[in-house]
């Protein structure tokens, strides 16, 4: 990937990192069968942080954020999200999931429902929001991701970039306190990456707590307050973006950066 790193104009006036913990992961391990995929993960995320997680494929970065809303189960250590510990107690899991929004690489919109129905489903059936209120909220968020005119269409009729923006709006409709992005632009054509990133930047500007697994280094530089580099299931290095990109410490990080930035 020897593309130029684009820089984005970001308004940082509303971004504030508080000292309240949003996510607290301690000594977390995970295995797939006998494969030790996450090893001794310790990570504290404070409210308002924008964290970008990067690393080579198979390094466990997706698995890590999927553990945060328990799409994957960890076997050792603890994950506390907004003072709720993730355990086999389904009530806790549901509570965490309703406060954590997730955006997937392949959008995972529901193809049998219209865009509007995709957005109102969870508010109506999980939050018991009355339908007209849920629809109002949904249209508000569609406006925000700049596709209000697509409300009545089905996901299959939209472009990839539009679908991903619908997916972001769908997550936002649950009014989450934390947003997880799992390679949100990796399945998109180059000209659509930008529209999705702009939506994400806007979200960051409003002060949303965000964890993004992404290879968009321009986004990391402009938006993140912390970049985490993972390899072989471990956190190898984390730092502020400027330091991370200009003064990487670990040899693995240097190698990775040289490969993706194409110097």
């Amino acid at each position: 990937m020897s593309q130029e790193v684009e820089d984005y104009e970001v308004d940082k006036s509303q971004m504030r990192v508080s000292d309240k913990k949003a996510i607290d992961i301690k000594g977390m391990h995970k295995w797939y069968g006998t494969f030790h995929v996450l090893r001794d993960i310790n990570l504290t995320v404070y409210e308002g942080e924008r964290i970008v997680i990067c690393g080579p494929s198979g390094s466990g970065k997706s698995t890590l954020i999927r553990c945060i809303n328990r799409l994957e189960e960890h076997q050792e250590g603890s994950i506390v999200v907004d003072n709720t510990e993730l355990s086999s107690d389904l009530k806790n899991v549901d509570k965490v999931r309703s406060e954590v929004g997730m955006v997937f690489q392949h959008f995972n919109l529901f193809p049998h429902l219209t865009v509007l129905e995709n957005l109102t489903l969870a508010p109506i059936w999980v939050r018991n929001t009355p339908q007209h209120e849920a629809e109002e909220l949904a249209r508000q968020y569609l406006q925000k991701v700049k596709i209000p005119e697509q409300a009545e269409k089905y996901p299959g009729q939209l472009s990839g970039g539009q679908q991903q923006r619908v997916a972001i709006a769908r997550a936002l409709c649950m009014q989450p306190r934390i947003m997880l992005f799992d390679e949100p632009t990796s399945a998109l054509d180059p000209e659509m990456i930008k529209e999705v990133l702009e939506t994400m930047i806007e979200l960051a500007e409003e002060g949303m707590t965000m964890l993004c697994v992404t290879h968009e280094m321009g986004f990391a530089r402009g938006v993140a307050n912390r970049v985490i580099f993972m390899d072989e299931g471990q956190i190898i290095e984390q730092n502020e973006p400027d330091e991370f990109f200009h003064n990487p410490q670990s040899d693995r990080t240097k190698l990775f950066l040289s490969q993706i930035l194409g110097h």
Partner: protein
Amino acid sequence: MTKQVAYVRKEILGPKPPPNAQDRLIGWLRENLFYSIPSSISTLLTVVVLGWLLLGLFNWLSVSTWAAESLNDCRSIIAELNRGPDESGACWGVIRDRGIQLTFGFYPSEGYWRPILAFTLLLPALAPILFADKTPRRMILFSALYPFLMPWLLWGGTIWVPLGVMAGFAVLYYSFRFTASLNNLVRYAISLAVTLAWWMFGVPVFDSVLSALAPIGLAPVESRMFGGFMLSLTIGVVAIGASLPLGILLALGRQSDLILIKALCVGFIEFIRGVPLITLLFVASTLLNIFLPPGTEFDIIMRVMIMVTLFASAYMAEVIRGGLAALPRGQYEAADALGLDYWKAQRMIIMPQALKISIPGIVSIFIAMFKDTTLVSVIGLLDPLGLTTAIRANQEWAGIVWELYGFIALMFVVVTYSMSRYSMYLERKLYHEH
């Protein structure tokens, strides 16, 4: 000479209509019937064979008579039409003579309005399910009522029995509500037990008390009076209606993480699929009596309906499992990530898509099952095929074949073809890509 590489288009082309050979008749014929010499030959051959068949059929139908009282009678009428000694014609007299019997079996004639009403009401009961977007939502209430109304109309008896059975669902609901403080599994067990107790012991008491006060009801009709298309439709409708939900539950059970439920479902599906339907029907008609306590009366049609339903639901479960397997994992994950619980995710996200994928398979099972209802003639129930044996044993109509079986076949084709057309309509309606 230099190789030219650089190129810049000066004018942008506008859209042009496609070559329109296909729009015209000649073009269409050439494209579809006379594309090459072999295709032209096969077209001509097919036309000749089809024409010969249709001509024969037309000759046979054109010399038909409705009037005859017996096969001999019919033959003499056709001979009088004077088309030559070898000329045959259709004897529809058998349908006129026995059509009522082929439709109602031995159902008492003063009660014919009951099956007619029951199956006419089936249409408005199905409409909100089949054409949900074109019918008022309230009509679904009638659909919910219909499963209680239909057996009452057909079998008769006091109205308090179906009402008592309906009340059982209220019992189920409230016993579930009142045990809210308990563990979920205990709640299910208690409320199910209470409901079953109501159905087994409460309903007879409820019926006898209220019948003494207000004896409202229809004359009871015994199952052995049922026959003909009415019997096929009754068994078919019940089995179709019951096997879909049962098949969904079995398919979900087979994918369950709970090892016991999974084992039960797998065992049931594999066992039922491994046994021929006729065997199950024999079990229903003879073996079951050995296992039931002596003196128990367990209606034969009810037993057959249960067996046909179980048989179809095992196949249904596998077809739906195919639909579930075709769904990308991302759909489950998105539902989980939004906080939907298992049943809500199944109901709103997973099942609508899995069922849509499975429509062709599901409808195939419906069609096969409807045709399989004719197997009940093997255990002595008088469905249309069972009745043909009786009709052909009668000396008036001994020897008649084409008209009788042709008529029955036509009736089955009408029903199964409607199902097939409906499934195509549904597939088109649910197609949302582009």
